Every structure is written in structure tokens, then in C-alpha cells.
């Protein structure tokens, strides 16, 4: 009767033989498993398609920036149409009497004598 050590060594021979003859999956089994894998696999997480407007808005900084741009554009159009009247009113408001003829103020009246020839 083999002793315990010998028994262990012999058993290891059997285990080694079993490891060496491990069953290999057939091509048919692998194909079935792969087919299941394809059927169960979630769709890849694709990046959403981005249209021209979405890309443009991304380029200038998104919707807040676009809103700013739109406001500035509208303001420009409004100023372009409405400006003549408004600018006139503004000029009057900051410069009262801006519409009338200017008075000439003689700042150095004593100079008149020097500027006229022969005291005329």
C-alpha cells in the first residue's frame, strides 16, 4: 500500500493528466456563445449627430453666447433705423439750444484795437 506522500504524488499525476486533457469547446459551441453575445449586447454608446447649427453654437460658446450675439445684432439693427431722431434728441438734451445759431462771444474785447489797422 502506497504511503500518504506516494498517494498524494500519484493523485497529482491524475490531476495533471486531467488538466492536460481539458475539454476544448467545439467551434459550434463558440459560435452559439458568440451569437448569444451579439444578441444580448447593448448598442454602443454613440456620440449624437451634431448639425451645423449645433456645431456653430458650440464654437462660439453655446446658447448663452448665441443669445448675447442675437441681442447685440438686434440692438445694432434698431440703432441703425432709430438713431437719427434719437441722436438729435440726445444732442438737444445734452446741449440745450444746440439747434439755434451760436452767439459769438468776444473773449478779448481789448484786442480789437490791435487787430484793426489805423484805429478804424
Amino acid at each position, binding site marked *: *500500500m*502506497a504511503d500518504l506522500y506516494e*498517494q*498524494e504524488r*500519484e*493523485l*497529482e*499525476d*491524475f*490531476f495533471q*493528466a*486531467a*488538466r*492536460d*486533457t*481539458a*475539454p*476544448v*469547446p*467545439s467551434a459550434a*459551441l*463558440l459560435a*452559439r*456563445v*458568440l451569437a*448569444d*453575445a*451579439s444578441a*444580448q*449586447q*447593448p*448598442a*454602443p*454608446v454613440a456620440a449624437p449627430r451634431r448639425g451645423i447649427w449645433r456645431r456653430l453654437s458650440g464654437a462660439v460658446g453655446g446658447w448663452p453666447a448665441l443669445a448675447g450675439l442675437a441681442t447685440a445684432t438686434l440692438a445694432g439693427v434698431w440703432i441703425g433705423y432709430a438713431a437719427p431722431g434719437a441722436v438729435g434728441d440726445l444732442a438737444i438734451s445734452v446741449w440745450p439750444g444746440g439747434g439755434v445759431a451760436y452767439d459769438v462771444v468776444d473773449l478779448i474785447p481789448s484786442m480789437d484795437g490791435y487787430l484793426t489797422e489805423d484805429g478804424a
Partner: protein
Amino acid sequence: MAFDAQDEVSDEALLVLYGNGDEAAARALTLRMTPRALGFAMRMLGDMAEAEDVAQEAMLRLWRVAPEWRQGEAKVTTWLFRVVANLCTDRLRKARGVALDSVPEPEDDAPGAEARLLAASRARALDEALLTLPERQRQAVVLRHIEGLANPEIAEVLEISVEAVESLTARGKRALAAVLAERREELGYTDG
């Protein structure tokens, strides 16, 4: 093959990649995991057709669990062996008595055939001896000595303590040695 590039990637990372829709990960996992599932199922059931069904079913469950898989939670092999063990238990309960004849007889006439025949005979004798063990002992011995798992991982697979695994493998090996001792001469061993 294209799968070689995936060799460095862990099983867990491959499963997460699969869950994200990576087709190459599906192929790599199939080639890596199917032989493990099939090998364990074959040793447990002793029938190739049944073992193939179990391997396919276990892999199907793996594909289904993939989207919820969290890296670091568990090892894929541990999870897979547990599923295979449970599927085999279900089948063994349904059909008591396993067809020992289903293990194919080795046939080999090529040079060096004698050594290979001897190894094949021993593997076959072991398979037959394994099928005489109680189911839990068989699971523990196969996972420890053929699949090469460490005791703590086997404990996780079988959901028992490490001490219980040690006890199962020790008793299983004693029983195997007793069965195989009767066939020592036939399997190339001589006393003395």
C-alpha cells in the same frame, strides 16, 4: 489573432467593455471564459452535450449581467464558476445517475502514443472516480486541483467557509485515492 491584444486586459474590464457595446470584448471573453465553464461543467456532469448546454447557459447569463457589472465587485471567473456549479446541481438533481460511458475512449496510434494513452487513461479514470464523489466534494476537488482556484475563491464560489473547502477537498482526495488504488496496475503504477 486579433484577440491577442486583449490578453493584457482583465476579465472584469473586458466585461465592462462588452457592456458598453465593444464587439472585440465579446469575442475575447467568449474565447477566454467558455473553456473554463465547459471544463468545470464536464467534470461535474461527465457528459459533453450536457456540459456544452451548461457552458452556453452560463455565458448567456454573463452577457445579461454585463450592463450592471461594477469593476472591483467580484471576479468574473468566481461569478461564472458559481453559475456553472448551480446549473450543474440543477441538472444532477433532475437526472440522478450519470452516464459514465459518455467519456470517450482514447484512440491513438501515432508514435509516442503509449504515454499519451496512459495520460488519457488516467484522466478518464479520474473523471470516473470524480463522478463517484458526493457533489460538494467533487466541486471542491475539481475547482482546487483541476481548475487551479485558491481555497478562498472556492469558498466564494460555493458560498461556504475556507475551512469547509479544506475539509471537502481533503475528504474528496481520500475518496479518490481509494477508488483509484483499485486500478493502479491498469494505470501504469506498480507496488514497491
